[in-house]
């Protein structure tokens, strides 16, 4: 199983490991609750070097990405980032990604580890009619660290001469972190402020330890999952997959249908956008301490026996103290305040449809 350049460091810090997207990744170091709390209250550091870094460059690169993705890459200003998706001809989601515009003719796409080959393959198929663009998968050359939390920016600032206050949310800049040339991306997957720092894999141990020594807590993927769930952020393989389109996932805002140029999936998504969806992603909350977990069936009432949906992600929220879940339900049960009944290993739990996210940081 592939490992990130920090695998030995994680082991040295006492991490337990898990298979994630085909990678042997740290799931926790000591306590996933403590790691979760560190991100909410101070700063946590995640090794996300398993994620894919795909560079697109050339004179036609913005036109190419306008065709390849559901969002409008040409509308992203230099140094800015945009959440987007790559879909198939039927409008179903191959992956969700973040597109960073490095320069007028140069983009960086960060994709999920498990979808790396599917995304690279789709981009390479779609680039053929754009002579002056090239797609370069450089995932193996880079380490990617996410430092997240209310103290993340202050901690990162102690290791760089770049003025981080000049990099607002969803922007990207270049700078040195602990002397190592890096891309500084003000993005994340935790619901907190922070940065994702991309640099050459050879420097991974040095930069990781510099951030730990500056006060960040090493955090594993268990806490990353509960953090993103509280923040209402989808995870590919749970909320998103090849049987789901962006409108069902409540990501219609990322799909730019009202533009001149064609893009892969546009015709299908135009039809889908006009029709009522058959399933819709909602947030659910319950009482007590028992979590509704992925794949548990959902019913209209405690007596009902015909399933109306299923849980995609769920946990006892560490920050809120009650069960939260994301789920697909049929639209007639999706109104805010609707009550549904979830089968938790044979016991029914009443849950209520609420607005996402469950947790929003004080701004």
């Amino acid at each position, binding site marked *: 199983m592939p490992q990130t350049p920090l695998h030995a460091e994680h082991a040295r810090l006492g991490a*337990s490991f898990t298979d994630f997207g085909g990678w042997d990744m740290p*799931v*926790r170091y000591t*306590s*996933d*609750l*403590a790691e*979760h709390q560190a991100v909410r209250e101070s700063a946590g550091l995640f090794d996300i070097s398993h994620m894919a870094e795909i560079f697109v460059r050339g004179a036609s690169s913005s036109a190419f990405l306008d065709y390849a993705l559901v969002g409008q890459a040409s509308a992203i200003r230099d140094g800015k980032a945009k959440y987007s998706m790559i879909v198939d001809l039927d409008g179903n989601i191959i992956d969700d990604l973040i597109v960073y515009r490095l320069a007028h003719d140069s983009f960086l796409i960060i994709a999920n580890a498990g979808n790396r080959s599917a995304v690279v393959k789709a981009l390479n198929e779609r680039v053929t009619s754009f002579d002056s663009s090239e797609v370069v998968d450089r995932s193996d050359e880079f380490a990617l660290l996410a430092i997240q939390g209310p103290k993340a920016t202050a901690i990162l600032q102690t290791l760089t001469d770049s003025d981080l206050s000049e990099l607002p949310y969803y922007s990207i800049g270049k700078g040195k972190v602990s002397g190592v040339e890096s891309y500084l991306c003000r993005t994340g997957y935790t619901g907190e402020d922070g940065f994702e720092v991309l640099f050459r894999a050879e420097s991974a141990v040095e930069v990781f330890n510099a951030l730990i020594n500056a006060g960040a807590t090493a955090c594993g993927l*268990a806490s990353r*999952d*509960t953090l993103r769930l509280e923040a209402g952020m989808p995870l590919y393989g749970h909320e998103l997959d090849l049987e789901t389109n962006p409108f069902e996932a409540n990501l219609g805002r990322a799909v730019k249908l009202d533009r001149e140029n064609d893009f892969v999936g546009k015709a299908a998504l135009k039809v889908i956008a006009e029709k009522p969806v058959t399933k819709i992603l909602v947030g659910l909350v319950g009482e007590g*301490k*028992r*979590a509704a*977990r992925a794949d548990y069936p959902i019913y209209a009432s405690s007596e009902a026996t015909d399933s109306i949906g299923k849980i995609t992600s769920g*946990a*006892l929220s*560490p920050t809120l103290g009650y069960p939260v879940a994301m789920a697909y339900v049929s639209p007639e049960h999706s109104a805010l305040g609707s009550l549904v009944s979830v089968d938790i*290993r044979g016991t029914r739990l009443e849950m209520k449809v609420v607005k996402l996210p469950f947790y929003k940081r004080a701004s």
Partner: protein
Amino acid sequence: MSNPENLKYTKEHEWVLIEGDVATIGITAYAAEKLGDVVFVDLPKAGTATTYMKICGEIESTKSVGELYAPLDGEVVESNPVVVSAPETVNADPFGAGWLIKVRFTNLPELLTAAEYNVLTGEA
């Protein structure tokens, strides 16, 4: 954490302390560490009958659900109120304050010794 010599074990990672005809039961440090932070414990009430290797409770962490298998036939005489109100006790002291239930047993099946359990968890 090493597995105490005075306890018996199951392949489902429970430990059992035999005192007269009452067995105190918990999950091992190995099991607690594999689960991660325990956030909810569902235990059988006093008076509930237990059957050898049948599920009689659940231990949930943020990431997963662990099942508690009864290591012997008998009747629950007490469940630990401390782990219900403070589930983290299971991680903090799995062989002590984090015990789960006490069962008055009717017969004693063959359980693993500490040495045998160490082999099972690769600690031997």
